[in-house]
């Protein structure tokens, strides 16, 4: 009797584990369809290089504010701010945000004018998986500064059929 019960549990265990994995797969499929074309740390680095060129990328001045654990990867609140007086002599010209595991590495690029007041913005982004995001700020003196954040993306436990 104990053997049969153990066997039943084994098959039910496999079924549930597979169901759970399938649930994860279906949810991810609604955000990222093709496994073949995905950003990687290498493509993210290439996208950053397009902005930064040969200049050194220093850590600092930039602050990413993103929840460390997000409830749904479809809508992730993101705020990026840069410590800067925003004067004509010393200001932030642009902030570019990149990701490493979505199908493509860019997230957003924002450009500030002389009347910005504050070098900061907020938006909502899509993250296909738990991953790193990097924000690069381009300053008026030609220097580049960055910050990075690791985000864990969970999915809703009950997954909708595509119908």
């Amino acid at each position, binding site marked *: 009797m104990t053997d049969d019960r153990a066997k039943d549990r084994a098959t*039910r265990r496999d079924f549930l584990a597979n*169901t759970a994995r399938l649930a994860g797969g279906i949810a991810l499929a609604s955000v990222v369809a093709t496994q073949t074309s995905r950003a990687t740390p290498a493509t993210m680095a290439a996208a950053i290089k397009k902005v930064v060129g040969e200049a050194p990328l220093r850590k600092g001045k930039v602050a990413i504010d993103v929840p460390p*654990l997000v409830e749904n990867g479809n809508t992730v609140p993101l705020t990026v701010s840069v410590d800067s007086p925003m004067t004509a002599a010393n200001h932030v010209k642009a902030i570019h945000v990149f990701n490493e595991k979505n199908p493509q590495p860019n997230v957003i690029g924002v450009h500030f004018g002389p009347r910005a007041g504050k070098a900061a913005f907020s938006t909502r982004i899509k993250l296909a998986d738990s991953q790193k995001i990097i924000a690069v700020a381009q300053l008026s003196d030609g220097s580049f500064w960055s910050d990075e954040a690791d985000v864990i993306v969970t999915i809703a436990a009950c997954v909708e059929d595509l119908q």
Partner: protein
Amino acid sequence: MLRTLFFTSWRGNAIFAIAMLAATLPVFATEIPLADRRSDYEFMGAQTRAMQDDDSANPGMLGVLDGEALWNRRDGAAGKSCADCHNDARSSMKGVAARYPAYSPAQGRPIDLEARINQCRTDEQKATPMKFESKELLGLTAYLALQSRGMPIDVAADARTQPFIAAGREIFNRRQGQINMSCAQCHDDNWGQKLAGAPVPQGHPNGYPVYRLEWQSLGSLQRRLRNCMSGMRAEPYAYGAIENVDLELYLMWRARGLKMEAPAVRP
């Protein structure tokens, strides 16, 4: 014996653990004591709550704007708008969404707000009914539900509606689907615990129609119930099915007194 069972996926572990726990529970789970009931809002993260709290950041408000335009739009063979009969929704529709599903003498049973809107469209405007989950119907229900924001849910529980509340309660407590679990086992008995990293809410409908992050759009309570049932690996009821409406009525009765929050934001 249970100690030796192991999964590679911790999510599978969680679902299995709950299923095993659920297997030992009686079929009619205990209802949450009235004083312990909390809106699903309280189980969300701070950022999602902030999205709901700010009307200029809540994407559901875009639907409300659509609904406001539709309220004033003349339509159908009768060439009437909602406003032509009901005037300013801010006064005439105050408290209405908090009372739905409500008994319809014409149908001999309770109907939900979507069905009531469509009844007006066909009977009064002589227009075609709006489809479930269409931008129009969602916008109008969001606009109407907004007029009840902050008011306590107050569906009638009288001789006419009691049989339907009971029918909805039976569905809520019935084991279904491949996992053979009932709604109650998670939402009455295990609310507040985590399933696959996310807290299990009590499952109250006080925010509908909701902007669900998973959908990236507004959606009705029936859509959410259908999601729940597919998630439980059970066959969902069709849009407009009386089982869905009975469930909606039971859920609203179960949430009686909780404040309306529509259009809410949910993960």
